């Protein structure tokens, strides 16, 4: 295994009774890489992500995330990764500023550090004028950008993004991807799921899960060549039904 790998998964498997949700997946994700994690609904993506983020103990196999073991050090993994999903990320009934302070506290940042980061983040995101507003009153695109920045507040080496761009307009969606590019160029590893196949093209490498297995894993360019496809959409359509 390479030293710079931030995710190392070797035959990670999760069974629920007789059903194998994730079936011996083996892959590595390198530091600073944007890694697209694709698959049809029910292919096992969510279960795999839960194992990699320390939320679910694997049945068998081996895995390390951000330097910690997925079996024995799940709590350390949770503290050392960033996580954002479309469904849950921010507290809607807290203000913008309160959300930042809350998550800063959860991740164990010092008070002075939280204060300094809050000011910088409000400025960078141009949210200064709405800092005292409840998060639920913000447009979806602003929430998503705020959620992403908060996921990076404790400067994790890796951030997991679960369908981060659902439902926003095409400009906001692209602005979000520029934030992803920027984070990656700062050395943060980005692990992202999406149903937008154009976004698969923005990833350095893409894996496609089918029936619990990783069926394909490579750069978008090589995947398109391998499957004689014009777009990642076509690659996905060829593979995803198994």
């Amino acid at each position: 295994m390479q030293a710079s790998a931030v995710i190392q998964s070797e035959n990670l498997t999760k069974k629920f009774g007789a059903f194998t949700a994730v079936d011996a997946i083996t892959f590595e994700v390198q530091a600073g890489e944007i890694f697209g994690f694709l698959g049809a609904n029910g292919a096992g993506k969510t279960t795999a992500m839960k194992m990699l983020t320390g939320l679910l103990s694997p049945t068998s196999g081996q895995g390390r995330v951000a330097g910690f073991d997925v079996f024995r050090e799940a709590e350390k993994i949770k503290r050392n990764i960033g996580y954002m999903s479309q469904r849950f990320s921010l507290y809607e009934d807290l203000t913008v500023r309160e959300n930042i302070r809350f998550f800063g506290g959860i991740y164990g940042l010092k008070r002075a550090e939280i204060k300094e980061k809050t000011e910088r983040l409000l400025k960078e995101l141009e949210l200064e004028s709405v800092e005292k507003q409840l998060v639920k009153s913000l447009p979806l695109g602003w929430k998503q950008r705020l959620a992403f920045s908060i996921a990076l507040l404790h400067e994790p080496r890796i951030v997991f993004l679960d369908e981060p761009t659902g439902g926003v307009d095409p400009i906001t969606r692209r602005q979000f991807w520029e934030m992803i590019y920027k984070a990656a160029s700062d050395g943060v590893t980005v692990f992202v799921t999406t149903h937008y196949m154009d976004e698969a093209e923005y990833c350095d490498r893409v894996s496609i899960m089918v029936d619990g297995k990783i069926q394909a894993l490579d750069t978008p360019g090589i995947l398109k060549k391998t499957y004689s496809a014009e777009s990642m959409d076509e690659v996905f359509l060829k593979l995803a039904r198994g």
Partner: protein
Amino acid sequence: MQAIAVQNIHKSYGKVQAVDNVSLEVRPGELFGLIGPDGAGKTTLFRIIATLLLPDQGSATVLGFDAVKDYAQIRRRIGYMPGRFSLYQDLTVQENLEFFAAIFGTTIRENYHLVKEIYSQLEPFKNRRAGALSGGMKQKLALSCALIHQPELLLLDEPTTGVDAVSRKEFWDMLSRLKALGISILVSTAYMDEADLCDRIALMQHGKILSVNTPRGLVESYEKPLLAVRTAGMYRLIQDLREFSLTDTAFPFGEYLHLTTRRRVGEEEVVDFLTRKGHENIEVKRAEATVEDCFMALMQE
């Protein structure tokens, strides 16, 4: 008679103007797409057309009936699939379908031909509780329940949100077949690539309709000079092209970046600029606009 005719509809929630003077017509037998991001007002408009919400101003007729006065007539004739899964989670697959058939005074057997193709995929699980179905199967069951009373008009509010690309394609294939049976369909989506599968589309943002057109007509009406650009690294390409003096917008579109410019520029001008910036493997070509390009251009007007 239009399947749907909406005239100057307004609807506010407190200070939020959810639907702002919207007029729209859906022709009989048409597959009409309402395209826009979350918060555009799509669901509010759907609820008004489905007679579940009263507009503040304006009028709507659905299948020739007034959406306020004749709501009972309309409800009997439409099939409505709300954005949020609204079936009975504690009933089984079959019980849900039987229930919806019964309240519309029909039976599964009577209209089985309408749902056969969709429902047959669910039949192996017909004794499973609806709450325990996967997302894709819930969506198929919801569509079956919306169809079982043989509606003349289907209202589908974001049926494909959160659904993977393969299942979305299957869902749209089903819609084409329902259209072929003569059912008029109004469907909303935030996925702009689905627009191409509609007969006509309305682009919606901030409660307003930005444009109504056929997908073909929309992209042909695009007037900005548009180039597709590709180099070895997308992030650096975006940053550098933002500094190019003729750039209007520079946004990634899959493997290419779409560049709109203030005036028509030759491909070689862009190549020269990027070469000076040290880019490699530069490819620049004229691009045909997509529905997303059009939406972005209209948003910025």
